[in-house]
């Protein structure tokens, strides 16, 4: 088998007080694969994405583990080389399109700048590329959009721009951090479809962070279920939905609201399941602490 696009091996990250926020996370994303990372708020899904992209908050320290981007160990690289590698091979589709574009710069330069300044493309090539991508995300009036300031575009429009920007440099891996969460439900579907479409066309691997199991089912081939920074279950998406193994996964699926009976189906995760999870986490921490003092 060829090298994974992204290979995370027992990654642990700690806060200054010694608490682990990522607990020996291992997961891999194969080239061209959509790997979903699902869990509730605060489970550390976004943290994993930030770790891969090298933008962890200063207070979070990677205590252990390796991250390999197309076989290159990010931890072994000098900071500058790491930045260059991450910049050239990855991109982010962010959660909130409202804050992900610089409000005082026009869309056009914001999109081409990266291609020209970082990747050294000519202005013309960058411009053509951006227009092609805008067409792919079904923006029909690229002239207007390129000349606009972000606040002149709707949320869905901005997310399209961000998707186009993410794919523009042909990255090998895109981290999509809840890319539909901040959008209208009607727009969510279109955006999701666009990401899936571009992903297929470009063959880009995606680490898709979400809390929405419905989205997981639609877009991903494999999925990791995360709880309190620990991967509790990992499976092919189809297999996971057919036969969830971990009680927490089953509880999550049971907690998904159904349109037929929204009130009855909307229920929290069972206390017994949570107690089991807490014991599991405690045991894992104990095992981890022994060699790490």
């Amino acid at each position: 088998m060829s090298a994974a696009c992204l290979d995370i091996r027992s990654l642990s990250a700690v806060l200054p007080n010694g608490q682990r926020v990522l607990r020996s996370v291992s997961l891999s994303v194969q080239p061209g694969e959509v790997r979903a990372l699902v869990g509730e708020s605060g489970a550390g899904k976004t943290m994993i994405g930030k770790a891969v992209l090298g933008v962890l908050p200063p207070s979070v320290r990677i205590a252990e583990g390796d991250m390999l981007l197309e076989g290159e160990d990010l931890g072994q690289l000098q900071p500058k080389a790491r930045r260059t590698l991450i910049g050239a091979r990855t991109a982010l589709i962010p959660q909130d399109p409202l804050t992900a574009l610089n409000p005082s710069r026009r869309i056009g330069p914001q999109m081409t700048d990266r291609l020209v300044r970082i990747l050294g493309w000519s202005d013309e090539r960058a411009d053509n590329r951006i227009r092609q991508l805008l067409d792919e995300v079904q923006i029909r009036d690229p002239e207007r959009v390129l000349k606009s300031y972000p606040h002149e575009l709707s949320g869905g429009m901005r997310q399209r721009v961000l998707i186009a920007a993410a794919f523009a440099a042909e990255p090998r891996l895109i981290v999509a951090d809840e890319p539909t969460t901040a959008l209208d439900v009607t727009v969510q579907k279109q955006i999701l479809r666009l990401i899936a479409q571009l992903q297929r066309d470009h063959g880009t691997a995606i680490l898709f962070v979400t809390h929405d199991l419905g989205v997981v089912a639609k877009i991903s081939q494999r999925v990791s279920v995360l709880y309190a920074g620990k991967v509790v279950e990992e499976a092919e998406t189809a297999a996971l939905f057919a036969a969830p193994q971990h009680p927490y996964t089953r509880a999550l699926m049971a907690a998904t609201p159904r349109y037929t009976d929204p009130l009855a189906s909307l229920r929290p995760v069972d206390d017994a399941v949570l107690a089991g999870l807490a014991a599991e986490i405690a045991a894992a921490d104990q095992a981890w602490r022994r060699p790490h003092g």
Partner: protein
Amino acid sequence: MDDARIARRGVGPRLWLAGGWLLLALLAAILAPLVAPQDPLAQDLMLERLPPFWLDGTEPGYWLGTDSLGRDLLSRLIFGGRIAFIVAFAAAIAACLVGSVLGLIAGYFGGWADRIISRIVDIWMAFPPVLFAILLVAVLGTGLSSVIIAIAVIDWTRFCRVIRAEAMGQSRMDYVENARIAGYGRIGIMLREVLPNVVPSIVALLSLEMGIAVIVEAILSFVNLSISTDDPTWGGIIAEGRLSIHQAWWVLVFPLITLILTVLSFSQFGEALKARFDPVLR
């Protein structure tokens, strides 16, 4: 369409009124030798304490009356504007440059840079500003450049604090993170992503600071620590007017009105400019 939207929020009148007064005062100051009706330094004891034009006992050509040495008040105000504007522009720009650069660095880089700069600002701001200015001018010696330096040295902290806070907020934004992922250098991000978003605040503060510089210069003139006493300054005229308040109130009142209008216009002009050019507010 733009104009309509601005007018609706009341930016238009503010911008034009404040800008109009500033332009008028600035032009009068620049063209002082041409527009001033009298020589501001010419004394004539026959004409002492003439009242302004609408009262009895005035002389033609002395619109706002004269002071206790018979010097024309309007001409003195116009010439005094020269020093006021020179000080306002030079001191505010100097304070802005120093304060904004340090504030940007502190806010964007954080960590040690922020801790050092913020401590300096804290200590700096513990000094009573006017006393600090008087002390500085006393040490540097009176004169135009000392006044400018003194104001810049005192007031850079105002820029530093505001720009630091803004840059800090900006550096937490997703587009800054995105730029980091893309591989931009820190300084490049600071200049390209952060700076454009704090420029509206810098402009507003700059204008506000010009008003403050006018006041500080007036205070220094008032305590006789500004420029040589021959050149009329607003603060100097106010100081003289205070002595003859019971005989000639206008010598105190007109420079005060000029000062207030100018300072108010600077602050309003800055705010209006900010609202006009901030793409997010707009």
